[in-house]
């Protein structure tokens, strides 16, 4: 009886040590391969890390479903934001000729692009679904320039790990990892359903990340910053979403 207890104790102790060091090694490896999201601390960290790691290991290069033109929603929902203020109206009256997208951070050539310049670059369009975390959705054709093209033009440094992107609305800023930044469907959209992108849907320029929920497709894009240190932005949780209580990775 005594002997059995001691044997069990030793086996249990060894098991615990092996388990703990196994977890430690797994965490090190996961960090090395970029499988840990910026909001991995806290009580919901384990779930978020499992989701993000699983998606990055299994679906890194997969393409979001694209639909035939007949599936485009006749009645999309804009989910309009509060009035954007006088400065936005001034730019709108000028047909957004003065709208600029600034690219900076760990890039060789920080650059400021006009809409006309963005429209002169190779275009990519896709008919994809946008899903809100609330549960509603619509399908539209999105037309824009691949984010990967902008990163190539500006010379993204190899150590860059995240793309931080900002809106005309200062409180709505997001970030994505390089897997989504270089993804062929990730575009800076200036067109929708064969036309200009309406202001209600984020015009003149909206990020479209096809494999994540709508809140990652930031409207009124003004600035892109590449970084290798996401912790230095905001509260260090990756974007404004975790600061407001929402997951940084919205691919589920």
């Amino acid at each position: 009886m005594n002997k059995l207890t001691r044997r069990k104790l030793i086996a249990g102790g060894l098991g615990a040590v092996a388990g703990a060091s196994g977890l430690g090694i797994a965490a090190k490896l996961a960090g090395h391969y970029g499988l840990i999201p910026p909001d991995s601390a806290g009580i919901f960290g384990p779930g978020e890390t499992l989701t993000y790691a699983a998606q990055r290991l299994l679906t890194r290069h997969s393409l979001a479903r694209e639909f035939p033109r007949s599936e485009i929603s006749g009645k999309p929902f804009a989910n309009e934001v509060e009035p954007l203020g006088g400065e936005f109206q001034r730019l709108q009256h000028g047909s957004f000729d003065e709208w600029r997208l600034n690219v900076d951070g760990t890039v060789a050539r920080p650059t400021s692009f006009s809409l006309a310049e963005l429209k002169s670059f190779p275009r990519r369009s896709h008919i994809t679904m946008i899903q809100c975390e609330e549960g509603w959705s619509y399908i539209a054709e999105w037309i824009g320039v691949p984010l990967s093209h902008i990163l190539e033009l500006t010379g993204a440094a190899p150590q860059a790990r995240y793309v931080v992107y900002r809106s005309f609305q200062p409180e709505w800023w997001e970030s994505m990892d390089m897997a989504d930044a270089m993804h062929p469907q990730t575009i800076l959209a200036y067109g929708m359903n064969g036309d200009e992108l309406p202001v209600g849907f984020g015009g003149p320029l909206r990020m479209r990340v096809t494999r994540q929920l709508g809140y990652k497709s930031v409207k009124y894009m003004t600035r892109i910053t590449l970084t290798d240190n996401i912790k230095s932005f905001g509260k260090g949780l990756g974007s404004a979403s975790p600061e407001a209580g929402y997951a940084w990775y919205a691919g589920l």
Partner: protein
Amino acid sequence: MVETLPVRHTFIVRITHWLITIAFLALLVTGLEIVVSHPRFYWGETGNVNTQPLFKIPIPSSRDTVPTGYGYVLPDQNGWSRYLHFQSAWLLVLTALVYGVVGFFNGHFRRNLLPTLSEISPKRLVLSIREHSRFKRPGAEEAWSYNTLQRLTYLVVIFVLFPMIIWTGLAMSPSFVSAVPAAVNVLGGQQSARTLHFLLTAVLVIFLLVHLLMIVLAGFASRIRAMITGRVAEPLRRV
């Protein structure tokens, strides 16, 4: 005396039962919180407030963009609800995997859940249903094994309802379906998956209520004790 009796429920069955209970309750509460932000359901690929719903739940919403007919908006709980929903989903899936693999290899499903052919004959089934509808208190031998209706119900819950609710949940994930488009296509679209996910929840809640009612009828303390300690208390004194 009690110590020498064989266990009613194995350790794996007991621990996975309670882990899944915790996960299910967390998923239920957070799921309802998420639904409140858009209590409308659609069929097909897409749906929003501009389109005709399949059905609505007549409750106020936590978002002011949804026309509910109520003059007020409920507190918004989506952030933590979504975090906890997906963390609990991981707990559910990983626990279910352990239960499924162990149950398959140690004969739990075959021994305790699979009814024999004679048990599922129409005559025996009718008899079993009749006994149930009379709320006949089970005899001592029934504390040691499941009757046919129980076996069939558990099999449906374990092998149909839970796999379906996990599947329909995954079918709503934009990243998951980018890798496995068939998961959502065969369901008729992403909003169909959401609607099915909700309806399956309703069925599982009904199961939970009936399950609890049966436990109360069979002897709440003894059944709960059996699922915690694995032992059936004083089996010989039961009539």
